[in-house]
């Protein structure tokens, strides 16, 4: 299977839905990647089993402030430098790259990186959706270290985090970002193809493309059936009454009024992404599952930072990969990881 420039619109649409209200702008990223693919040709999308189990696979992502990246677009060199530096550090040669987060902006970046490096892209990632921290991966659950990790900024300045557990790598990378100019190309979680098969969430990119195709069909034809084929459902249709964006002291909250039953209320807790949905006081959606909002009329996804009173939206729920629902998965990426208190029995 290949990802060609014609597939990018679907990939971008699906990636936005998987961003659960966060994950960054995919439209600009799609333009960037299209230009790369037009120059270098389509990227080969491979299953981990198609590689030799001993082949090295390097995980790539952009980390930091996506908004700053859009003002200071990547030229490609920083990602190439990041992967090459990691290869030199390990003394290996990568046979393929994979995604860390096949959602939002970071679902598109690995396609460009694979093209720049002329390597296949493994159809796998570490999150199956968007999360804010680089240690919130199923790799962490499988004890695959994120280190050594390489961060490269657009001027070529490079930081190597040689060792440390995954939480420490997250902490160190976060601390380095201001000095790197708010965002950095990163190459991390180096692993062999056999490990990818065991540890990663496979089929991530093809799922994003499939979801994107479903969403774009729905936008054109108003057909909503494709959603349930992906295990998703429409939780609520209504108008946004009030939005309190997150502050340094707490999460944001949105209040929605149901279109038909005007007394019915949906409450959404939000950070950079949508975290929890309460329908008249009952939980109907909760991180790690995905809550995505789309405009009722156009079915264009609405990101958490663009949610404003007066908008009419459909609230969708998509299931997270099963591994996020295991106790260790919930501890790493469940409500508590976002500061949401849900005591036992609630």
């Amino acid at each position, binding site marked *: 299977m290949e990802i060609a420039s014609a597939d990018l619109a679907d990939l971008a649409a699906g990636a936005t839905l998987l961003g659960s209200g966060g994950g960054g702008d995919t439209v600009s990223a799609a333009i960037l990647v299209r230009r790369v693919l037009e120059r270098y040709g389509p990227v080969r999308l491979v299953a981990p089993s198609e590689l030799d189990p001993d082949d090295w696979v390097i995980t790539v992502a952009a980390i930091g402030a996506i908004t700053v990246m859009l003002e200071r677009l990547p030229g490609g060199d920083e990602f190439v430098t990041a992967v090459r530096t990691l290869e030199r550090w390990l003394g290996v040669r990568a046979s393929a790259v994979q995604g860390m987060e096949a959602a939002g902006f970071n679902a598109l970046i690995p396609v460009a990186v694979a093209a720049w490096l002329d390597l296949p892209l493994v159809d796998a990632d570490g999150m199956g959706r968007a999360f804010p921290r680089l240690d919130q991966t199923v790799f962490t659950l499988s004890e695959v270290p994120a280190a050594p990790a390489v961060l490269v900024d657009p001027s070529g300045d490079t930081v190597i985090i040689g060792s440390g557990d995954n939480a420490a790598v997250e902490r160190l990378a976060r601390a380095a970002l201001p000095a790197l100019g708010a965002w950095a190309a990163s190459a991390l979680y180096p692993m062999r193809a056999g490990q990818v098969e065991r540890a990663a969430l496979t089929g991530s990119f093809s799922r994003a493309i499939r979801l994107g195709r479903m969403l774009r069909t729905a936008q054109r034809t108003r057909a909503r059936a494709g959603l349930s084929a992906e295990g998703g459902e429409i939780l609520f249709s209504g108008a946004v*009454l*009030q939005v*309190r964006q997150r502050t340094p*002291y*707490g*999460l944001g*909250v*949105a*209040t*929605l*009024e149901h279109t038909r039953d005007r*007394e*019915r*209320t*949906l*409450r959404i*807790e939000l950070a950079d992404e949508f975290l*929890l949905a*309460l329908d*008249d*006081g*009952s*939980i109907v959606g909760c991180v790690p599952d995905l809550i995505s909002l789309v405009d009722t009329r156009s079915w264009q996804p609405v990101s958490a930072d663009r949610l404003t009173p007066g908008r009419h939206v459909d609230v969708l729920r998509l299931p997270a990969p099963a591994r996020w629902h295991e106790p260790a998965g919930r501890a790493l990426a469940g409500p*508590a990881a*976002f*500061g*949401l*208190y*849900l*005591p*036992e*029995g*609630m």
Partner: protein
Amino acid sequence: MSTTVTVRDLLADDSLRAGELLGGASGLDSAVREVILVTGGRELDSAPPGAAAVLDLTGAGGLTHTEHLVELVCRRLRGRSGRLLVVAGGRAHAAMSTGRLADRLGLPVLTVAEGLSPPVLACRLLALVRRPEITLARTLNLATRRLHAAAGDLTRILAAVDVSLRGRTALVTSGGSAIAGPAPECGHLLAEASAEFAERAGSLNVAACPAGDLWVVCEAAAGGPLWRDAALAVLRPASAYVTAWLAGERLAAERDARRRSQVLAELLHVEGEVPIYLNEQAAKLGWRLEGWHSGIHIAVVGEAGHPPTVTERLTGELAAHGVAGPVAELAGGWSTWVTSPSPAWGRELPAAVRSALASFRRGGNRPVLVAGIGQPAQGPRGISSTLAEARQAAVVSASSGEPGTVKHVDELGAKRLLLGWYGSAAFRDYARQILDPLLGEPGLLRTIEVYLDCGCSPSEAAQRLGLHRNTVSQRVRRAESLLGTALATPDDRLALQLACRAIRVG
């Protein structure tokens, strides 16, 4: 006595008073039977029906975001027939969704920003729900102490009730107008009340207890049945204190009135020089004996007897209209006079007295009053002569039958001739004799009176009485036959007309 405690009662407690109600106002009158402390889901599973829950979010283990729990608990609590959710330490600016959910479920949700710790708060509310009589006893005990300290001072008595019940307390007439304190919003309820009551009227609790012919009324927005029970418990002793104060005031007023009447009676009978002791007494009452006096006599028409407070109210009305003289109660009315350095002042007096009487009537005050005004006269002896004229004028005013009539002695002219007749007891007896056949039929007597006043014109009399002309003619014929006289005879007509007037004045 078992008191029901509702959500309103809990919200009126000091511990919750500063809280913010996010929604669910439709459930404010539900009875609360139990209080539980909620830290997680388990307490909710076993929550008894009719419970108020205090949500304790202090055990969140360092997690910062707990707001959403309010809605989860709200829903679960309603499912267990809960009555109130108190969020201790909740944030003041909750999201709109919480209020909407509370409204939808009809479950009041209150956030209390600071105050007691959640377990202590729950204990306090539990005591209130389980043993309301303790709260009642405490309120009553404090109120009794405050009332005792305030005895004899109406303002302080009402203030003591205000503080004890956290309401607005007033002493009001059964018509609802306030004599002391702020006019109650629900004063109209008193018109139908015959005994103490406490009820909720719209957004207010009202409790009222009679004190003599007045009411002590307390109103408060906060609270429910428990407040109303407490209000009655406090108003009962308070009304006793008010009644005692009233009795004291009346005693003093009567003593003053009697002294004034006595001094005036003596003044009126003075011949020659005013004795020194009388001058002294008049000075003590603030009366000026020198200068030009214009006497005013106010007479009661019809019914005899009136409440002792009339003198005070009448004095107030006269003073408000610029007639600020000493008022003394004398046979069948009140005498007063105004004093000025020259005789010219008296001209505006009739108008002033007229408006004072009109204002007295507008206030719904009984009895019906008329007045007469005398010529200005000089010196202490002048008081006696001007008041004598004022009394004559008042008799003529009374004879007109119109409430509020004020006549100046100058206007009387030929009518003064009639005064002798009106004033003579012998003629009144005679009048009663000749009109005797009609006295049992007031309608007939009134018809004849008006017929004669209208110069024996049946049409004019019919118009004034609102009757048909034929009815008047027929009544006149019946009266003639009952009296055995013919109204066509001038002498009989004059005698009958005088008799009618004399009876009306009498």
